[in-house]
């Protein structure tokens, strides 16, 4: 039965079915299935979609559809992990979001999905995210990487503000900051003291791996 539930959970993510994914996640909790295993099958599903995307067989709507399905199941599984005090092996914990004043989500979602597929635990705060929301999430999830997106020239300086806020909170040494988005360049990333920049979503995964020494 447990195999059946996990198989269906994975299938729901692969078939972009958010309702089914949440429903099978609830079923997994009811059946007392190890939540780490549930998380693993969802990660496998995302990796499958991510690989297809990388090979040019799948497209952005597939990537975003799978990410949405996983996001709908995620809180249910996370809650169970927390309740059981279980620990999941992952390359690292990442908090990601598009900065305040900027509502562009696509690039950020691509990066978040591929990071998940790449073995990271990713907490996506969405768009138009204020510095204090990033700080709060870093503390809450004990994140090792903060990934910031800004598409517009006007909102790029917000990334600098967030780094300043990390310093003020005494968190800067604990968190590696990676930045990206249409208006960001390596020079800009260097000038604001970011730890890394990459212009592409697959490149962002390589960057995150290098930031955690993997």
């Amino acid at each position, binding site marked *: 039965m447990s195999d059946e539930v996990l198989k269906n959970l994975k299938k729901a993510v692969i078939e972009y079915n958010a309702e089914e994914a949440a429903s099978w996640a609830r079923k997994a909790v009811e059946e007392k299935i190890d939540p780490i295993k549930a998380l693993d099958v969802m990660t496998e599903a995302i990796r499958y979609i991510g690989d297809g995307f990388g090979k040019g067989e799948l497209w952005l709507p597939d990537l975003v559809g799978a990410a949405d399905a996983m996001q709908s199941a995620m809180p249910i599984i996370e809650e169970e992990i927390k309740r059981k005090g279980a620990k999941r092996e992952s390359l690292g914990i990442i908090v990601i979001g598009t900065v305040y004043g900027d*509502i562009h989500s696509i690039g950020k979602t691509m990066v978040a999905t591929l990071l998940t597929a790449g073995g990271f635990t990713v907490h996506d705060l969405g768009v138009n995210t204020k510095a204090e929301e990033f700080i709060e999430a870093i503390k809450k999830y004990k994140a090792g990487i903060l990934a910031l997106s800004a598409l517009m020239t*006007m909102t790029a300086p917000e990334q600098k503000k967030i780094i300043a806020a990390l310093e003020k909170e005494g968190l800067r040494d604990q968190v590696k900051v990676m930045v990206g988005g249409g208006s960001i360049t390596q020079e800009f990333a260097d000038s604001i003291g970011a730890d890394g920049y990459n212009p592409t979503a697959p490149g962002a995964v390589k960057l995150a791996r290098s930031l955690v020494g993997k």
Partner: protein
Amino acid sequence: MLKGFTRKFKPLEILTEEQLEEIHRGTLEILENTGIVFHHEKALKLFNKNGCKVDFEKRRVYFPPGLVEESLHKCPSSFHMKARDPKNDLRIGGNTFYFTSACGMKTIDLDTWEPRVATKQENYDGVTILDALDNCHFLTVYCPYFGFEGVPSVMAIPESIAAKIRNSTKVQAEGYSQDCEIFNIKMAKAVGIEIMGAFFASPPLTYYEEAVEAAFRYVKARFPIYISSGCVYGATGPATIAGSTMTTSAEITAGIVLTQLIKTGTRVVANNYTFPQNMKTGSPAFGQIGLSLHNVAFNQIWREYEVPVWNANYCPSSSKKIDFQCGYETAIGALIAALSGSSLVGLHGEIYGELSYHPIQSILDEDIAGMIGRFVEGVEVNDETLAVDLIGEVGPIPGFYLNKEHTRKWWKKEQFVPKAADRLTYPEWMEKGKKSCLDYAKERMDEILSTHKPIPLAEDQDKEIERILKEARKYYKEKGMM
């Protein structure tokens, strides 16, 4: 006033009357029953006072169809716009259209084709070149570059408008961000010109506070407004051309209602800045022919509404180089925009969408504009052009037309002569160094920069522009933004 180009034949249309009606009904349905969010308290109150149902908590406005149609009727179907030099004034709307420049975040290096931030000199030179190009009638926002070296991001727009005012006497549009429209308006008024203010929706079905505040300011300054949806269909609008054309229209129409409520008769342009989604990269899919279908449908709808249209999205290229792809994508998109009746057609200078710009591209686009302009003016048929008498006089071989006065008079009117295209024979081409259009464009750029001197501002006007820029810097410093 600039003549622009006047289309002498029926515009290209792709929607049947039934399809037009369906899109119009759908637009009204969205506005009345789904509603549009306006993150702006004053706007919500204004809508409410004028008969819209408003959910103040959700900031959502539901528009009665009567108010929508009344607002569309209040927009002038064509209007005058004042340039720094009266000979460059425009009358926007009707069957006449003008080419506008495009813009880019960065310039490109012509050896490596890599993008980089432009210098101040390159920004000013880019404006000078647009000022010199006869077929570029209007300078767009953030043009040529979204800021240049040494300019903090909050000053990008004020510095951009200052450069355009100083180095060009043509009509221009300008954007908004972080209150910069206050300074844009002051600069325009200081030199006695009008600028077309931007008012952008944030699809789906949302207007943010900054955009609405800018609209209030531009309308109160009695400037014309262009309203744009900027939907990326497949992401912030339905993936279908019909669906996204409808949501784009609904978003723009909601903006129009607001402008007409602020001041009846405000001059507006419906700007199509919609793109399909590139389903691999997450960027807009520049160079997609589907976009031209979108533009033709959009232009047909807005012609029905009698509101002038700007295809600022005419179909920029997805190429990173000035090459064959860049040429065909740009030319096909611009031609279709012009044939389908856009009042303003975005064109000059853009390479990879709005991400890069180069003045050499603007010189090449000048020839595209010339070709399209010649095409839309159609075929003149009268006694003189038919030349029945002349044909009788010349007769069969050895009759010959090259030596006739009629030929000298008419050939240049009938043929468009490009300035940067290669039109040589093989022997001439080899003798002259096997040049391509790119080589000719480079030469033309050097020639323009060494010979074209834009009419300078009067000394006191220039000082006033500088004073306003200083005031803007102070404003942003005090706000801790630079």
